[in-house]
């Protein structure tokens, strides 16, 4: 069985290749639009990739249509049983067009892909993230965009690198400008302590209570979608949930978050969950290890004072 893995960025290709190993494929070929460093090549080799096919970056730069068209030509040439593409936002839109082009069975944002009785089986979150759908992919190739996290990586024999330019035209989208986020980037996915805020806070200024707590214990600040989306009190990169970050800290402290399924999917892998909410019946109650029914505005200042004393700062 041959598997083709691809992704927008080198580290995403490596992550996807490492994931593909779990399927025990006979051969893994990687495809990428961006150049790999020597170190990244060794990591790709460590993930069991024999060959890296470099597609000119101009295809990625022209948008999803051109990227999908180029990948489709490569798939026709290689004839893999399975194509896995890392589910970055661009990866997902490329995969949608690719599936349409190849008329292949496709599961988007799968968190697991397994060998089934006939073909492959993908698992993905549906219905707001509270449910898992098991989807059978009975076509050759089967196609999945995968949202998997990086496993242990190791260095290995550098794969051979081949160039592949299919010389194909597709409707283009021109990038005029990329506006980078202003603030320094936060890596919530790697944070071991997270203080997360929701609609229980009534004003933007009140978030200072959560920020003080976070600073005291060395936690990152996260939030539910309304805080970064509708209200724009915090940057989008702090949004935890279905369309935001998926985090797995040792301790997740949810302040004033009711616990809509879309949020829960982003924090479910936390080791311990502490929540504070005024509503004893909010869904977060059953998703917490310790659920405090209290008014944020009353309990937080007291808790901060106690922590200051106990932590000696």
């Amino acid at each position: 069985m041959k598997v083709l893995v691809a992704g927008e960025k080198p580290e995403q290709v490596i992550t996807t290749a490492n994931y593909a190993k779990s399927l025990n494929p006979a051969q893994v070929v990687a495809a990428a639009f961006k150049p790999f460093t020597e170190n990244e090549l060794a990591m790709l080799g460590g993930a069991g990739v024999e060959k890296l096919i470099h597609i000119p970056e101009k295809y990625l730069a022209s948008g999803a249509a051109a990227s999908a068209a180029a990948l489709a030509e490569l798939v026709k040439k290689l004839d893999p049983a399975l194509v896995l593409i890392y589910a970055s936002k661009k990866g997902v839109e490329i995969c949608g067009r690719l599936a349409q082009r190849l008329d292949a069975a496709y599961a988007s944002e799968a968190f697991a892909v397994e060998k089934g009785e006939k073909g492959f089986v993908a698992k993905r979150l549906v219905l707001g993230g509270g449910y898992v759908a098991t989807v059978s992919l009975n076509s050759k190739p089967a196609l999945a965009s995968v949202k998997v996290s990086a496993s242990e990586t190791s260095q290995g024999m550098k794969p051979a690198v081949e160039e592949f330019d299919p010389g194909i035209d597709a409707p283009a989208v021109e990038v005029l400008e990329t506006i980078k986020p202003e603030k320094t980037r936060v890596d919530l996915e790697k944070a071991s302590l997270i203080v997360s805020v929701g609609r229980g806070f009534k004003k933007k200024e009140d978030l200072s209570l959560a920020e003080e707590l976070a600073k005291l214990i060395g936690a990152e600040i996260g939030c539910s979608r309304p805080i970064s989306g509708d209200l724009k009190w915090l940057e989008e990169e702090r949004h935890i949930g279905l369309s935001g970050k998926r985090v797995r800290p040792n301790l997740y402290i949810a302040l004033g978050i009711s616990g809509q399924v879309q949020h829960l999917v982003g924090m479910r892998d936390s080791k311990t969950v502490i929540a504070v909410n005024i509503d004893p019946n909010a869904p977060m109650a059953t998703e917490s290890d310790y659920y405090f029914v209290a008014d944020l505005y009353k309990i937080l200042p007291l808790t901060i004072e106690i922590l200051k004393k106990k932590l000696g700062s």
Partner: protein
Amino acid sequence: MPDIVVCVKQTVDVYQLKPHPETLAPQLSQAQWKNSDFDLNAVEEAVRIKEKSGGKVVVVSVGPEVKQLLVRECLAMGADEAYILSDPSLAQADGAATAKALAAVIKTASPKWDIILCGEASLDQNAYQTGPRLAEIFNVPHVSYVNKLEVGDRVLKAWRAVEDGVEVVSCSLPAVVTVGLEINTPRLPSLLMIRAAQKKPLKELSLNDVGLTKDDLMPRAETLEVKALKTERRRQVFEGKVEELAEKLAERIIAHMGGRR
């Protein structure tokens, strides 16, 4: 004066959905139906473009049993006409079948369109497929994850949110655009608008009308099972005087924050 098609999916209200206590399957038969959230953002954006530049807004909805009442909501928001295709075979639809059905309706109902607007993903499937697939079927460019849109003469400019920041992009029309929650706040139609919507054209099409057979709508990806996720938590609830709660909260935080200070 762009002609805009908006694709609107009707889904179960996932916020109200409860799993069966034993099988963990979603209890769909008891669920309420609604227009998928992001699709209403797409309708709102289409109406705003029309208000600024003229043109026409056509709503298209396909599914196992499209409810006219929900389509009327989109008309009340300001769309001009609607076409719906209901067929039981669409209950099992995957992204491929949905896109095929939508494309067939669009070709029949509004073949000369300039922009197709969709929500970036649906509330129930969250698959992010419909927009890119439609663009591939019509061989046009698409822009996904759009949170700001400007439509000019035969060209569009869009701001789209990706991991690296906001990409400002441009492409020629016709094009497909998918939008998220941040692009706008869908309007709540007034009573007057709701009444006016009753007179707007809403046409039911059959598979035959749009040149499709049931075989065309066979899913390529077949859903075998849907089950609620279960989390194992201690679920200890603390209630009472806030001074005591604060003490306990501080204790729990210290116990679980690890070695760092």
